[in-house]
């Protein structure tokens, strides 16, 4: 029973990593054809991606969206997490549903709804609309990351601060804020990653300046090539490195917070 279940878990994890492993393997294979047998090791597909000015421009556009999205989502997520998990509030249930809504509503439906609204109100589609739209769908995740740090903070610390004469605001600034700082940093990184990987919503509300995800989507609709493998691998490992960093920060928070 136990051996069987261990085998099952291994198989499932192998399934989860199979696609990523495959593109990684063929991104360094010295052949245009993606098939066994291997033709030898090469980095030329990576060189091809790095030398592509159009993709480079898309990457810069992605960065100029992901930075503000990460900041906005973390600020709003911080407020939301405090309201939902730390300070008592009226209408908590409804607020929680409102927060979860962008995660549960099909992205394409949210995208067309925002498209209509921007159209009706005469808002020109630009990077600003992309930033606003992405912040909406990243918000549930950033709130969750910050709340997961906040719920571990001992409420006794707040009472102790109050007993020592600290006002609500100074107790927040000197007790809560330092303890939630790691949560904020982790949320920033997670929001950055989610923003840079987002496609459906971005494609709908972006104007002339197109982020990397939109460029890549139009590329691989038509043809597969090893250089797209290389690009995908760079995106995946960049994201994994960032998420690992966020997880590390969050773990550190749980150690100092407990």
């Amino acid at each position, binding site marked *: 029973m136990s051996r069987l*279940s261990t085998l099952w878990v291994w198989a499932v994890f192998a399934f989860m990593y199979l696609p990523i492993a495959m593109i990684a393997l063929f991104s360094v294979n010295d052949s245009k054809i993606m098939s066994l047998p291997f033709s030898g090791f090469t980095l030329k597909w990576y060189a091809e991606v790095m030398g592509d000015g159009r993709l480079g421009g898309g990457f810069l556009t992605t960065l100029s969206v992901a930075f503000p999205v990460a900041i906005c989502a973390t600020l709003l997520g911080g407020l939301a997490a405090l309201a939902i998990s730390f300070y008592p*509030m009226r209408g908590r249930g409804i607020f929680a549903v409102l927060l979860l809504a962008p995660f*549960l509503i099909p992205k394409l439906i949210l995208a067309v709804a*925002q498209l209509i609204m921007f159209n009706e109100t005469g808002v020109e589609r630009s990077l600003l609309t992309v930033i606003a739209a992405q912040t909406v769908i990243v918000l549930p995740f950033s709130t969750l990351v910050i709340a997961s740090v906040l719920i571990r903070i001992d409420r006794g610390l707040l009472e102790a601060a109050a007993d020592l004469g600290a006002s609500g605001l100074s107790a927040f600034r000197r007790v809560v804020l330092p303890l939630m700082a790691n949560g904020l940093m982790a949320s920033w990184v997670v929001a950055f990653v989610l923003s840079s990987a987002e496609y459906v919503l971005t494609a709908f509300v972006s104007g002339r300046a197109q982020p990397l995800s939109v460029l890549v989507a139009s590329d691989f609709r038509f043809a*597969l090539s090893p250089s*797209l493998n290389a690009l995908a691998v760079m995106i995946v490992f960049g994201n994994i490195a960032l998420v690992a960093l966020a997880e590390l920060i969050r*773990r550190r928070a749980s150690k100092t917070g407990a």
Partner: protein
Amino acid sequence: MSLRVGTLLAAPVTAFLLALCVAPLLILFAYSFFRVDFVAISYDPSFANYAKIAGSATYRGLILKAFGSGALVVAITAVIGYPVAWFLAKRAGAMKSALLTLLLVPLYSGDLVRVFAWRVLLGAEGVINRSLIWAGVTDAPIQGLLFSPLATHIALTYNYLPFMVIGLWLAFESLDDAWLEAAADLGARSPSRFARVTLPLTFPGLVAGGLMVFVMVVGDYLTPQLLGGASGITVISAINDLFGTAFDWPLGSAIAWTMLAILMAFFAMGAMLIRRSSLVGGS
């Protein structure tokens, strides 16, 4: 502390979500009653769009197909995920948090990259076909691998399995092993312990995970579109087409709201099921 602080903190977030999530959906709802007059929107409310959806076998079929796909993937992920969740909660020990992180990491690679990877694997010029030909198993590529419902459902399962596992894992974490020991002491065999103790007590997790997987499968646009070929036409891609080339925003809005209404009904039912079964589990 008064209720004011929390409410004050929530205010900017509420305003932001009202402006960029609720308001757009309400405008979408209003649009669903309008109609297209040649190339302009005619703001003349009627139920014509909803009548058109109800009367069209195509749209009814697409909606049913979406829910069929959702139910199928929920079933597959539940069967695959159940042992994994149990293992993570009860057997993983020190490896638990590392395994949980490993399970979630592929999610961060983004929808596009994941779909791309499956194309590389399953395509006629892809890894599996090319390798089978090289190994002499077949002469010609197996065409049915990519651009088929099979490819779509493999990738959908891959995409949303972690959400099912997380839902179930949370349920297993709160499952007290004492219940199982008590059942064993009372002479219940392993299958009966599973059916009468484990399954009912982890049912809320199954519902929560199932709901998440269901809405995400129903709402997935990219996966069927890029892996399904001719079978990739879904109700979601139909909405996309009505907002693009077909230019019928009002009809697209009506389909979108039909889907939202049905999904909300599912959620209400799911919430009720979870509440009821956790009452049973608690007593």
